[in-house]
Structures are given as C-alpha cells and as structure tokens.
C-alpha cells in the first residue's frame, strides 16, 4: 500500500512539472552541457566514489574550496582537500587533511564541510562519520584553522567534536551567524534532534561546553532513517520578522522553527503527511522564507516546491502538498541545492550540475546544466549515488563550483550570472552565505 502511495506521489509530483521540464535528459557524452554554461576548470581528485560535499569561501581574496573526502566505495582517503581556485581554470590541491590512521577508520569518512570566520580567523569544519568496529565512531567533526592559507604549513587542527552518547558522527552540518552574534554549528546526530554548537567556545578550547542547544523533531513525527532525527538543514535570518529560522528535513518530513531564542525553539510550520515523503532530506528556503525547496533521497523523486505562506499567515499549521516540482531526469535523483533566487543550483548526482529558475514558483524551468559524470549508475551501492554531490556559488562574482563523487572538482560560469545580491532581485540578501563582518542585523525600521 505504501509502495503504491509512493508511486502515486512521484507521479503526481512529476505531473505538476510536466509542462516545464523535459521528460528525458538532454545531456550526452558528446554534449554534456547547455550552451550557457562554460566549464572553467576541472581537477580529478582521486578514485571513484571518494568525494563528498564541498564549500566555497566567499571573499575574492581567499579563493579556496574545501572538499570532503571519503571512502563511499570502500577505498579512499578520509578527510578534507583544500583547493586553491586563484586560477579557476586550474583548481589545485593545496593541502590534504586526513584523519590519523585512516586505513583503520571504517567508512565513510568526510561528509559535509563548512567554513566560518571568527575574530579575524578563518576555520573549516569537516563533518565525519566512521563506522563502528574501528576508531572514532563517536567523532562528529574536526575544526581546522586555515587563516594562513595559501601557506599550507600553517593549517592546524584546533578542536574535535565528539558525541559518545549519540555515536555515528555528523552526517550533515550547517554554519550560521545567529542574531546574537554567535557563530553556530548545526549538526545532525543519531537522535531526535539537531545539535547546536557555539564555535566561539569550540575554537577557544571550551569544547566540553560547546553544545549549547538542541532543535527537536516535533513529538509524534514518524519515519526515521538510521536513527537520525534530521538529515539536513538550513538556517537563515528572516528580516521581515527579525527572527532566526531553522529549516530542517528528516523524520516525517520538514519543519520550520523560530530559533531566535535557542533555549526554546518554537515550531512555526510542519510539512508532514506529504505523499511520498517519509523522511526529508535537503530543505532550503527562498531568500524571503516564503518558498522552500525540499528533497527526498530516493530514485524518481523530484525536488518539491512548497509555498509556506498559508502556514506563516496562520491559516494552517501543516502543509502537505507542493505547488510544483522539478527534476532533471525523472529516471534519476537530484541532491543538494543552493538557492540564489530565482535560481536554484543543484548537484544532481548522475545528472551533474543543474540550474533551474523559480521566477514562477509554480512552473520551475531548467535554465542550465552540465553533466560532470558520464559513467553508469552504481551497481555496488545505491544506484543513484554517483556523480555530482555538492554545489556552491560565490556571491561576489557568480563562480559556480561542484564536487563530483568520482570525477573531482569543477568550476563553471553561467552566462548572465555574474554574482548574486538578493536586493537586486527584490528579495532579502539572504542565502547560505554568512556575513561574518557585518553587525548584527536589525529591523529595517531601526536603521
């Protein structure tokens, strides 16, 4: 019965977008990309299935990308590659951080990676997951001081975050400058909540007290995976209400919390009971917080677009129907995404980099693509898990970078996209990019 429901859901979601999206892929080995995408550079990083997520620093004078490395295919390094993009046409590995005795650590290794700036210094957080039976099964992340780049000899490890009570590491992380001014790390854990760490405490040596809050999964939510309450999240400031908002995907669907007061997260919207969604994955809002792009991690699943307005206006508390959906190729699966309204930059696994527009949220339109992986689906692991894993965008100049599980790191330009500032599009200048050096945000009326 459930299978029937899933099938019906996937079909209905696809029907929503049928008018806007081609039903089969347009990319091929001979022509992997659309005409408006320029490949600037490509550097293979190693063997098949050894690359995970990536993060791009935003300041033009710090042209560095951080790429998580793991052994999803059984073999591979476990750590982080620091890539110099000072010449985007020639991405060059500057430094490789690896867990000690990596051969004895069970897969996977590095998963997600983020950076932050605090008191004039730059740090990278590498999330880690190691299987039981080997060392560091409870290690969730390592924090590196990378202030001295490009001098790789200055990179040093400053802290490790371990959680023995919820072993299994951090599958995903998100970094956010809270309206209190604190730099916060949100992490998945194998429990019914997300952890929130104060990075100021972590890098100053007070790791034991760095865990300062938890964002719960609402009571009664069903449909867990691997014991994780959340799989993924985004945290962003909502200028209209002057609140900090947490957008989490996981058990039972998706949730939006007001986390202005970290001690008492307040649920704002639930998205549960959605046909075909038992467990949410990546969940990212538009810059104004009205629309959300929601992923589920199974083959044939499109990205679903939801309008939160009825819930934010208090008309309903739960939303269970998308207003539209988008897929690169209905036979495949798309993965992470970065929203630069109206564009959504997608790392589409077997379909490579994809960009679609939500100018009309009810009719998403593919605007660009480049397939970085022309190989076959997996036969040894889940079939869809290969190809483009992570994507990021540099707001200052529009540089697009993706990490591919098997082919390495790629840099792109999209014609007509020379950077992003939300105000140019009539929306708040809010994205995953944090403004480390700006004062605490205030309501417009106070400025």
């Amino acid at each position: 019965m459930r299978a029937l429901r899933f099938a019906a859901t996937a079909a209905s979601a696809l029907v929503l977008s049928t008018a806007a999206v081609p039903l089969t892929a347009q990319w091929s080995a001979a022509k992997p990309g659309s005409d408006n995408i320029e490949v600037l550079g490509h550097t293979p990083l190693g063997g098949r299935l050894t690359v995970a997520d990536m993060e791009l620093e935003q300041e033009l004078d710090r042209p560095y990308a951080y790429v998580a490395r793991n052994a999803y295919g059984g073999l591979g390094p476990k750590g982080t590659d620091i890539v110099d993009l000072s010449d985007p046409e020639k991405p060059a590995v500057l430094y490789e951080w690896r867990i000690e005795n990596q051969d004895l650590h069970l897969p996977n290794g590095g998963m997600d990676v983020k950076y932050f700036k605090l008191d004039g210094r730059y740090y990278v957080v590498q999330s880690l997951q190691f299987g039981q039976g080997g060392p560091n099964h409870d290690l969730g992340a390592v924090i590196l001081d990378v202030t001295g780049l490009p001098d790789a000899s200055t990179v040093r490890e400053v802290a490790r975050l371990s959680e023995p009570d919820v072993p299994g590491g951090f599958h995903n992380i998100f970094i956010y400058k809270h309206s209190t001014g604190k730099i916060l790390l949100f992490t998945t854990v194998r429990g019914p909540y997300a952890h929130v760490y104060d990075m100021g405490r972590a890098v100053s040596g007070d790791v034991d007290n760095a865990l300062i809050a938890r964002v719960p999964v609402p009571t009664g939510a069903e449909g867990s995976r691997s014991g994780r309450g959340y799989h993924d999240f985004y945290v962003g400031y909502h200028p209209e209400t002057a609140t900090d908002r947490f957008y989490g995907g996981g058990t039972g669907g998706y949730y939006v919390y007001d986390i202005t007061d970290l001690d008492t997260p307040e649920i704002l919207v639930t998205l549960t009971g959605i046909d075909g969604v038992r467990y949410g994955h990546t969940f990212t809002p538009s810059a104004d917080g009205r629309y959300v792009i929601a992923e589920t991690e199974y083959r044939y699943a499109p990205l679903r677009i939801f309008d939160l307005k009825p819930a934010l206006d208090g008309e309903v508390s739960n939303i269970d129907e998308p207003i539209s959906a988008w897929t690169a190729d209905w036979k495949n699966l798309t993965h992470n995404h970065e929203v630069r309204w109206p564009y959504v930059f997608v790392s589409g696994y077997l379909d490579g980099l994809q960009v679609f527009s939500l100018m009309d949220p009810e009719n998403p339109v593919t605007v660009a693509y480049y397939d970085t992986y022309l190989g076959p689906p997996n036969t040894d692991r889940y079939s869809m898990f290969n190809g483009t894993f992570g994507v990021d965008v540099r707001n200052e100049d529009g540089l697009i970078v993706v990490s591919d599980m098997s082919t390495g790191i790629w840099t792109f330009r999209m014609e007509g996209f020379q950077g992003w500032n939300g105000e140019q599009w009539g929306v708040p200048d809010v994205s995953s990019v944090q403004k480390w050096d700006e004062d605490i945000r205030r309501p417009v009326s106070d400025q």
Partner: protein
Amino acid sequence: MIGLLTLALAAVPAADSPTCVADPEPPTYYDFPLVSTRRVPGTGPATGVGRVTFAASPFGVALAADGSYLLDVWLSFERLRLPPEGELVVWFTTPALDRVVRAGTLDETLRFSGQVRWNKFLVVVTLETDPDPSAEVWRGPIVIRGMSRSGMMHTMAGHGPFEKENCASFGY
C-alpha cells in the same frame, strides 16, 4: 570450604586433570578477512585470513591475568609479496586504538601465530624498515588490516533497532 576444595583437588591425579584443548579446526565463522590497504608496492593483491579460538585452558575459557579473554590467533596470507627491505610486523590493537601490542613478525611463509587478550580487536600489519621489538606503536605504513568478528557487534545507541542499513555503510 577451602579445605574441601583442597581435598578434592588432591584426590585427582595431576596426570588425569582435564585440559580443554581448542578445536584445531575452529568454525569458519571465527575467521575474519585480512585486507590490503594498497599503500605499499607489491602488497595490493594480498588477501589473508585470521583465525581465532580460545587458548587452551583447564577451565574451558582461557583468561589473561586481568580477566580478559585469551585467544589464539593465526594469520595467513596469499599473494603478498615480501618487501625487499624491512619487516612485516603484526600488531594487535583495540578498536579505539587506545591500546596497542606488538605481536611479532610474519615468517617467510607469510604466517603468524600468537595470542591476543581482547574480545574485540584489530589486526594491523605494517612495513617497518627499522624494526624495533620494543616499539609501542607502528611507524611504517599500514599494509594489511583486519577486524575480529566480535568487532562487528556494537552498541545500538543512536541506531534504530529495525534499520535495514548496515551501520558501516551510511547512505546519503
């Protein structure tokens, strides 16, 4: 009580005392694979197997002085080319790597036998160019690794009881 026990022991001739001898052919599910890290030239195709059984004991289960299990371990390899320089040294370590024991070296037939005193343990074979029998931990590259069968048993903390996924193969 002690007196009765003394009498009972005295009544049994030493030559007839029962000694539990380990099964020379332990069940195959005691075996565990030894795999190459592919980091050292000539060792990439290597495969191996570790065999474990309880050490001989008059009490059935052999214990070390600290009360932990005492296990006999045999290691054997195929397609492992001995390096021109250095020795292949066998180490036993706990899964957390907080305790390490230098167990010995592989012989010319690519075999090793010894004892380990942990229930869960890792086998680590390293290439040591400057072998030091008193070394407390390896310095050379890891050539081979293996995990005792019991290492696959683990806590269910943070792990759903009915999950179908292998814990060591997280999905995305």
